[in-house]
């Protein structure tokens, strides 16, 4: 019996060690992948040996990284692993899988603290409280412009017949006086991307920006963020926006708070979260005085809930959702609006957004969606992009047509940035619409595609993102001849202090 046992043990050793050897040989001999389709990235390159890299030890760590990152049949291993793991970990209830169990609401100050918006002197600008260590702004990128060259900001109507180099500067100084860089630890309202390391034309991929994650669930094949906001933050947002109106009484000021997809598509067991969202939306609207016109888009979105108004694999709305809401806004603002039928409809297949890449919903990689976008019929539009921290022209940002408004060559995973590019720039679109109205949009990433639907509505559309904009907004308003201001963000950002503090910062910096 003992011999039999020993034989079994010996057999086991041969099996295990033999298996390890065969696997080792396979890992060494078989062809190694160089790119990951599912992760949309280049895998680690084989390191080159040099005296320096050997001495520093870098060669060895790079070799190990290369070995692990490029295992043959990597995609198959990953798919199997993810599938097995999801089954081994637990069960989904009503088809729901939670990815981030902590809601942003929990990070908010208690409402009873009643912290209100208080304008502060510009001479002592205070970055947002609790801003921590994470700079909101991306590192300013080098531009093609000499540092001394004044920003090309025109106060004149755009010449629609010539190329965008004809814009006439109306000032020799930057319109906004730089103030200390705001910092933030806001939630990822932005496309979770930052300034591109390379130009979009070169196929460069924007770097990933890490933000605290919100509560997020996967319901079937649709990712959604769970809502949580604070009334105190809402009060502060309202005060900040109304303060802009107080400072510039001639402006038309609007507020648009966009519901999350979870307001419409949550399963029954999480309906209370949607109800909370609706209640807060109504509460927020009730806080505004007549100084600000509220553009309530809840009913707008609800009436189109059977259409694809939200992305399934990304936390943003679709361009179609943005279109419907802009239509509502144009109606409130009393400006003309180009009907959707006049747009050229295009789409990209295989889109997988932030719920996969940022929130970690790996299952979505097998369930990509079609990203549909709309090209405006107004070909007279000219858009320029400026560095949000110093107003230098970002001539490296080049669109796919003469309008410079669309970036169709971006990789499919960055499709949300096709219209009007990304968050970390100031964009100025001259449209030639001839309405005599000029719009400033202060927005989170939900605002990114919105100007592209207003090219027939406003002569000029300036768009800034409080997470990146570091200059004087009142200088901007006066130098650009702004007539209308729209505060636009998803409901998270109008009801949580992370973003609201940045709004305050923008609003108060002229005091």
């Amino acid at each position, binding site marked *: 019996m003992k011999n039999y046992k020993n034989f079994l043990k010996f057999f086991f050793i041969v099996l295990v060690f033999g298996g390890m050897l065969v696997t080792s040989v396979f890992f060494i001999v078989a062809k190694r992948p160089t790119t990951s389709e599912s992760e949309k990235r280049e895998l680690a390159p084989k390191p080159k040996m040099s005296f320096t890299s050997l001495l520093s030890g870098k060669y060895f*760590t790079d070799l190990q990284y290369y*070995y692990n990152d490029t295992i043959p049949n990597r995609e198959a291993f990953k798919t199997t692993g993810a599938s097995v*793991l999801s089954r081994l970990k637990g069960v989904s209830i009503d088809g729901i899988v939670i990815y981030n169990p902590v809601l942003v609401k929990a990070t908010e100050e208690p409402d009873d603290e009643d912290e209100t918006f208080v304008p502060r002197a510009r001479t002592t600008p205070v970055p947002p409280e609790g801003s921590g260590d994470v700079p909101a702004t991306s590192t300013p990128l080098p531009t093609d412009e000499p540092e001394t060259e004044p920003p090309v900001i025109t106060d004149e109507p755009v010449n629609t017949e010539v190329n965008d180099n004809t814009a006439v500067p109306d000032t020799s100084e930057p319109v906004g006086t730089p103030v200390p860089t705001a910092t933030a630890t806001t939630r990822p309202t932005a496309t979770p991307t930052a300034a591109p390391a390379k130009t979009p034309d070169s196929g460069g991929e924007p770097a990933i920006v890490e933000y605290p994650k919100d509560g997020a669930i996967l319901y079937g094949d649709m990712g959604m963020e769970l809502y949580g906001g604070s009334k105190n933050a809402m009060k502060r947002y309202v005060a900040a926006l109304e303060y802009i109106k107080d400072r510039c009484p001639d402006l038309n000021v609007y507020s648009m708070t966009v519901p999350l997809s979870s307001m419409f598509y949550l399963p029954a067991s999480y309906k209370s979260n949607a109800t909370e969202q609706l209640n807060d939306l109504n509460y927020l609207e009730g806080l505004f005085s007549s100084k600000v016109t509220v553009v309530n888009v809840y009913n707008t979105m609800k009436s189109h809930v059977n259409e694809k108004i939200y992305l399934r694999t990304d936390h943003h709305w679709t361009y179609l959702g943005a279109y419907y809401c802009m239509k509502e806004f144009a109606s409130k603002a009393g400006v003309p609006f180009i009907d959707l039928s006049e747009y050229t409809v295009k789409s990209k297949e295989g889109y997988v957004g932030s719920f996969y890449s940022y929130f970690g919903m790996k299952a979505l990689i097998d369930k990509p969606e079609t990203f549909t976008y709309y090209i405006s019929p107004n070909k007279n539009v000219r858009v320029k992009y400026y560095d949000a921290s110093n107003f230098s022209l970002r001539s490296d940002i080049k669109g796919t047509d003469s309008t410079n408004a669309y970036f169709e060559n971006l990789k499919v995973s960055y499709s949300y940035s096709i219209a009007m590019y990304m968050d970390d720039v100031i964009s100025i679109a001259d449209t030639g619409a001839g309405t005599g109205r000029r719009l400033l949009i202060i927005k989170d990433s939900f605002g990114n595609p919105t100007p592209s639907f207003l090219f027939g509505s406003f002569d000029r559309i300036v768009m800034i993102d409080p997470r990146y904009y570091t200059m004087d907004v009142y200088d901007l308003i006066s130098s650009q001849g702004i007539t209308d201001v729209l505060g636009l963000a998803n409901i998270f950002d109008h009801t949580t202090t992370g973003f609201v503090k940045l709004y305050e910062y923008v609003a108060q910096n002229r005091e």
Partner: protein
Amino acid sequence: MNFSDLFFLYAFLPLCLIIYFISPKIKYKNTVLVVFSLIFYSWGDVKALILIVLYSLVNFALGRAIEKGRGKKSGKLFLLLGLFIDLGMLIVFKYTGFFTENINGLFRTSLKVPSMWVPLGLSFFTFRTVSYLLDIYWEKTDSEKYYPDFLLFISLFPCTVAGPIVRFSSIGAELKDRTVNVDDMYQGFMRLMVGLGKKVILADNLLAVSDAYFGVGVGAVSSLDTWYAVIVYSLYVYFDFSGYSDMAIGLARIFGFHFEENFNYPFMCTSIAEFWQRWHISLGTFFRDYLLYVPIFGKMRRYGGLFLVWFCTGMWHGASWNYIFWGLYFGLFIFIETLLGKKRLKKIPLAVKHIYTKILLVIGFGIFRFTNLNDLGSFFRNIFFFSKAGFAGQTLPTFFMNNIFLFIAGIVCCFPIIPWIKAKVAGRPKLETALGVVYSIFAIALLVLSTILLVNATDHPFLYRQY
């Protein structure tokens, strides 16, 4: 490099095993092990190679000098010199920044806080050499006469980076002469695969669950969620560290070394003192043997020594106040248990003792988790149901169910199920064989699954590597 790494499992280890087993004599085998151990230790950090060679040379020479000076003043002086060098190095590399920060805080100075390079596994190999020198001085063991073997003792890759704290007295003989039979190989591979499974399948995924809460900031977590997350975190620490120990013991066994157990189902304890007899046993016995009865507290030696041990235990785990609190926290409850006495403790119902110990342990792991004292404060507020985020999070029921099998597996694997089954079938050869086959297949399945999960997995360095 660490053990739960594809490069280690499918490049380094097979190569090492092949060369080791085709080497004909123990001298060559040791040479192979030394070379691979030095490569393992200094992988990606060549200065670590210089450090460990110099360190071993110094301690080798000191060991010889202490042995020669036994019973003389010189022996004591060399011992003191050795302790000064070894512990001094530990203090300088690991605690300089911590001390500077506290001096700045205490005296409002603005001394520059140095960013020190901390050699991998410093705390572990320092304690190994300290025990070596003291054992020579106390004549519990003789010094190693052959430097390459001493270098192997210091650098032996299964235990260099994260323990166990193997003493020279326990493996000194095996450095000179050891054999590997089929059972050693079998047991070694089994431990290796089970340990790998503990680390990759359980620990890494338990950490992800815990981090889903604490990664956001403990202040944002509700009370019930905090309890859930900290229980999961406690399981993570156990499986991470015991998984590593299993792999270390298994690897050593394949090479013919017999390390002592480092964990013995610690969550089965019914007192805090018993927990520490079952948890990181090599560290506990080190402090017991070398520090507990240090005669520096006079008549209060018993209790003074106890708190000194727990202060050092905490400090050893990291240069941060939370680790010191963590050590003293356990010291306090062991002190209370000592005051109560064994007889009184025995009278307490078993269920009460289990509940008492588990609650204290889980809270203890919470203290261990939060190096930031503000976070630690939030943690305590949460577990005593004063969380700003309320009693329970909206997502807890679903999230709990999403991870229910993992959680149950974590709890179940804390129990000594395998030893229990083995005891049940003992004396019944057919059942024993069947159990062996089933267990072997299970271990192979763990290896396969771990390998799949390791592909492109985020690198989770072993928790204890930082110490």
